[in-house]
């Protein structure tokens, strides 16, 4: 097996909006790659530059400087777009069309034949939970149904890579669950997925790697497992009995005292084992131990807040 080829290559990408004094730098020199078969989450607060980056990948926006390549081609070429399934951020599809007609339009534009579409459309509507809705006018579709249809149009031709902007926008919990299932299937089939989302549990569940962007710059780029590792938190609730004193090494960790009970939080697995051992040796009664992982969401919020604080301090 050779090295996996890059599907998306962004290098020193700068994208600006507006002109003159109203010029806004939405993306500020970011570089990243997405390789074949990877599932990468692109997360950031509102206005961080996620959609701008994705629109640039698709060739809708032109960078001021830097390069973007898709499948080794310049972004936005017909050949690169042939191989991509794209879901825009909340689209309201043509209200005068029926779901089947819309999928025929998008499938046809992907070069699919009428015969292929006849087979694919019912299968696809079933997959996204819109079975039996093919002949309904889209003006009667809810926001969630439109989003499901958007996902259907993106995957209609079994593209090699998927680029989704705000993946689960407008979907209810059932819709999000269904979508995760569809995407897991796609991921397991070895396809490449790159998506932005506000739903961080989705990112945790689906992604191999996460790229976090804040104010146009990448602040973290790491495998999900690496981001979760330092987040392990252990909590021990104990009390000292029969006049035993708190070991000095434990006291230094600053446990919170509530009556005769102590509560201690530790974020290192080795230290946690050592403390439990020392407390046992010292005759402490350990009432409960628990371990918890902070969610990616908590990590993200801390990161964004700390960036804000740094800027405030500067």
């Amino acid at each position, binding site marked *: 097996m050779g090295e996996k080829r890059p599907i998306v290559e962004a290098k020193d990408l700068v994208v600006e909006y507006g002109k003159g004094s109203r010029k806004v730098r939405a993306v500020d020199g970011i570089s990243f790659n997405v390789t074949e078969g990877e599932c990468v989450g692109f997360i950031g607060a509102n206005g961080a530059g996620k959609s701008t980056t994705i629109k640039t990948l698709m060739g809708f926006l032109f960078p001021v400087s830097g390069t973007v390549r898709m499948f080794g081609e310049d972004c936005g070429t017909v050949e690169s777009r042939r191989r991509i399934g794209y879901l825009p951020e909340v*689209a309201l599809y043509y209200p005068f069309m029926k779901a089947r007609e819309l999928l025929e339009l998008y499938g046809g534009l992907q070069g*699919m034949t009428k015969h292929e579409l006849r087979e694919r459309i019912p299968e696809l509507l079933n997959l996204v939970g819109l079975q039996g809705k093919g002949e309904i006018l889209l003006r009667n579709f809810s926001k969630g149904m439109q989003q499901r249809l958007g996902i259907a149009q993106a995957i209609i031709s079994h593209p090699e890579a998927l680029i989704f902007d705000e993946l689960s926008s407008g979907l209810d919990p059932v819709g999000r669950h269904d979508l995760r299932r569809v995407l897991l299937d796609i991921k397991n089939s070895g396809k490449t997925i790159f998506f932005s989302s506000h739903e961080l549990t989705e990112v945790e569940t689906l992604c191999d790697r996460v790229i976090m962007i804040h104010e146009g710059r990448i602040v973290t780029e790491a495998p999900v497992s690496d981001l979760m590792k330092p987040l392990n938190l252990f909590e021990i609730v104990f009390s000292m009995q029969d006049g035993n004193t708190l070991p000095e090494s434990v006291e230094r960790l600053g446990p919170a005292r509530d009556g005769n009970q102590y509560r201690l939080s530790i974020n290192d697995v080795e230290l946690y084992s050592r403390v439990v051992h020392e407390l046992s040796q010292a005759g402490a009664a350990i009432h409960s131990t628990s371990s918890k992982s902070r969610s990616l969401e908590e990590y993200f919020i801390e990161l964004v807040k700390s960036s804000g604080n740094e800027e405030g301090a500067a």
Partner: protein
Amino acid sequence: MSAESRARIPPASTAITLLGKGVGIEIFRRKEFYVLLFLMCIYAVGVIIAGAVGIEDAATFFFLLNLGLTFAYLSGHLLALLTAARQVPKELEHRTLYPLLAKPVTRQTYILGKWIATTAAGIATLFLLALLSFVPWLVFPEATELSGLLFLQMIVLGCLSIALVAALGLLLSLVVPPGVSLTVIALFFLFWNQAKAFLLAWYGDGPAAGFLGWVLQYIPDFSKLNLVTRYTDGVGPLGASEFLGLAVYGGLITALALLLTGVLFERRQL
């Protein structure tokens, strides 16, 4: 989902047909066309009533024919303009442009598809309503002394005029809001001939009159392509060179407008 990708780059003709079909469905399911058809039916009923109450002179026939053909002519243009001017702005507003242009379709193909579809819709409207405008013929069968060749010339130049209005509708919709583009083109369509005559009369002796005249001749003059009144006035057909000159005039301005639209849209940040 383990299936191999079935995506191919469709031929431009297929993409244009599909985009055109989309516009066709839009027109078919919106109200505008039916409103125009309804108004034309009211006209036809009015003509039949006029015949029934005994208004049968030739002047009335020509007046009614002019009224019907003018309405059909305007309706074809109006439908093409309304449809063309909202295509790109609506697609941007509803974000449907993004999944469309994410498919292997060039921006030029997109513009060409929209233009062909809106032009075809306008021409189809012109044809259908023009048929109804001939109801006076049923009511006044003796009044038939009109030139068949001029009728053909009127239809050909009318189609070119619709193609031009659709191209201008698409072009202006890229630079100004749809309401503004509709108003500007409608004003040009209806009053440019008079406005140009007024400008030349008012500034005809000025130091830069020659330059003004030169500039004004490059602004599309729809009245040159409108032969409805000439036809219903019973005037003879245009000479071959004059007709060809007008056809080339309409074709060239349309091509220029489309070219500009393509260039602007290609460079536009979406």
